[in-house]
């Protein structure tokens, strides 16, 4: 069965606060970087998956995101299969 690489980006949903991003955004000016805004911190998850085809791989990874890898109540996710 073919093996695919999955790259998953998990981010906060719009309107949900991002305490880590906000804290880093406040820290950067102390280092002299005063021109930075909109800092957001999410998660990257990489995995490999055996699947009959790319579509099946993507469908399973999305299902895993819904059930475990992301919390759809507060997080969005984006899946890239290669």
């Amino acid at each position: 069965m073919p093996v695919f690489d999955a790259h998953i980006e998990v981010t906060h949903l719009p309107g949900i606060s991002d305490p880590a991003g906000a804290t880093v955004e406040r820290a950067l000016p102390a280092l002299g970087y005063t021109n930075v805004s909109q800092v957001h911190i999410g998660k990257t998850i990489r995995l490999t998956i055996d699947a009959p085809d790319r579509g099946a791989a993507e469908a399973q990874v999305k299902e895993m995101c819904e059930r475990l890898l992301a919390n759809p109540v507060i997080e969005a996710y984006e899946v890239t299969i290669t």
Partner: protein
Amino acid sequence: MTARIGVVCFPGTNCELDALHAVELLGGAGEILWHGDATTKSVDGVIVPGGFAHGDYLRTGAIARFSPVMGAVADFAAAGGPVVGICNGFQVLCEAHLLPGALQKNAGMKFVCDTVDLRVETVTTPLTNRARAGDVLHVPINHFEGNYVCDERTLAALRADDRVVVRYVENPNGSLDDIAGICSEGRNVVGLMPHPERACETILGSDDGAVMIGSLLAAAGAAVTATA
């Protein structure tokens, strides 16, 4: 008959003995519900206590939600049984969708360990039925991820249905609308970040938590009477 309270224990839970102690101190009977057993052992009430269930890997409560006991806890809650999640237990109940929203990292990325004032907002829950609305209770908090978040529609529903159970008098963690604890639509499932079980004796600095654990025993006792 004495109300029996089941205290859920996952690998990584560390407040189960505190919870058992508080339950027994206040006249209830307590027993551990091991996470691998898919049963609530016919108890009258359930506490999901604090700690780091399954190491809190990925997200707090994310993996604990799939432990076999959680199916039994969900069935118990669906049947109207009183369930209280404390700290990590609150996070687990949110991940399990028994409560709406989620807990994320504190504003400012600071771990907080303190004793704070909580205002009781509603008394029609298994955590507050022996309190009075407006009571201010002095109860410990001890968390890094207690910053309650939800979408606007959920927040509006929580407010409209009087489902914010306790609010912080002074917000310690950035929690939305100063929320320290909420209840489910059916009102029988409650989650809160503070630790009432650690404030049931004056020697511990406060016994204000006793009214909350006592409320749970009363709710569980009502269940005993109803089935007797």
